[in-house]
């Protein structure tokens, strides 16, 4: 893995998406105007649990400091509808992670989606979609 590809400094874009009212499940804590992207990170923890599924990984910030990032997604029940399972992600897996970072600037965010090593995508049940049923 080329280090810079996994660095926070390599985040590539802002994706301005209006997500005004995600009161449920606390998504208002996140800056949903901008997707922060991490390429080729290594999963350090995968928690398949209520209330929300969690993925952690290490990545450098733009000062080059390694930080542990925590990304939350929806509930196991709703993520299953989007194709997730308890075995979708394992410690050591290489992923691309797209998340909305906390407005605090802390290394924590709400997932938009992940891309697995085989190229398949898993979307978050809340912020991975922009259209309601």
């Amino acid at each position: 893995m080329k280090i810079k590809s996994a660095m926070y400094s390599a985040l590539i874009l802002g994706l301005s998406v209006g997500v005004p009212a995600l009161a449920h499940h606390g998504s208002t804590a996140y800056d949903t105007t901008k997707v922060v992207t991490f390429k080729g990170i290594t999963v350090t923890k995968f928690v398949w649990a209520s209330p929300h599924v969690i993925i952690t990984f290490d990545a450098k910030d733009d000062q080059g400091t390694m930080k542990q990032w925590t990304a939350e997604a929806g509930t196991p029940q709703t993520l299953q509808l989007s194709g997730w399972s308890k075995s979708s992600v394992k410690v050591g897996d290489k992923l691309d992670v797209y998340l909305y970072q906390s407005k605090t600037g802390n290394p924590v965010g709400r997932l938009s989606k992940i891309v697995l090593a085989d190229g398949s995508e898993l979307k978050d049940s809340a912020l991975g979609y922009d259209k309601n049923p």
Partner: protein
Amino acid sequence: MRRSVLNSGAITVAAVFPVIFSLHAAAQEPAPKAAKETRPLTLYQKLERANATGGPAPRRDVTGFWTGPLTPKLGPAPEMTPAGQAQFKRNKPDIFSASTNDPWATCDPLGVPRTMTTETRGVAFANMPNHIVILTQYQKIWRAVWMDGRELPKNIGAKGGPQPIWYGYSVGHWDGDYTLVVNTAGVDDSTWLDRRGYPHSPDMRVEERFTRVNHDVLEVTVTVDDPKYYTKPFALATSRFRWIPEQEDEEQLCVPSEAIEYRKMVVVPAGQDQAQGKK
């Protein structure tokens, strides 16, 4: 609140502006396409859309597994007494806030009526000798409702009487052939009415009316009568459950150790308090 997320169009795309602003190598990669996909429907949403009746309702029978919305339709803010207002101020809702004191945040029992206002994806009814048992999918809770005509105990909390308990004491009867009426008293007052943080006193009485409109539809109205905290009885919530065709339920548990870990890993660092503001 699921309603607001999934049903009301709360997530709308105001604008999609891919803006590449990094100077790093990765910036040469194409911006991810804006998601245009629609979120998958839940079983409940599918059944709501299909809107089947399944034929007429059977007489005096609600047994079976039903699915509902995550959160029912909650009524307007009830008018509180000064004592009710004082307690309401002490309750800090939002389990995704670091400073909440919602008992739900640590998976404490939801009690009655909150079990019918929070995480209501699944409910079931079963007949037992002299009882109907209400089974709540969330937390795998059961509530035994006496159907033998007895009245609720009158000396709850008194010395020698039954003491307030998490899910209270329930009796039921049929109002006509299609409405099951469940009356509950003696609920521990550390439980809340709903996620908004409305409190109740130990004297609260709850009435749940389950009306089987047809084979596939079960409507519920929850009414709270608590003169200590509220100026008059009020409709707390209304909801509609749908018959599950396969009669399969789902496991859905709030696990204390997981909830505590989630709070440490996500809720606190994400700064939910600053974002959510006051209730």
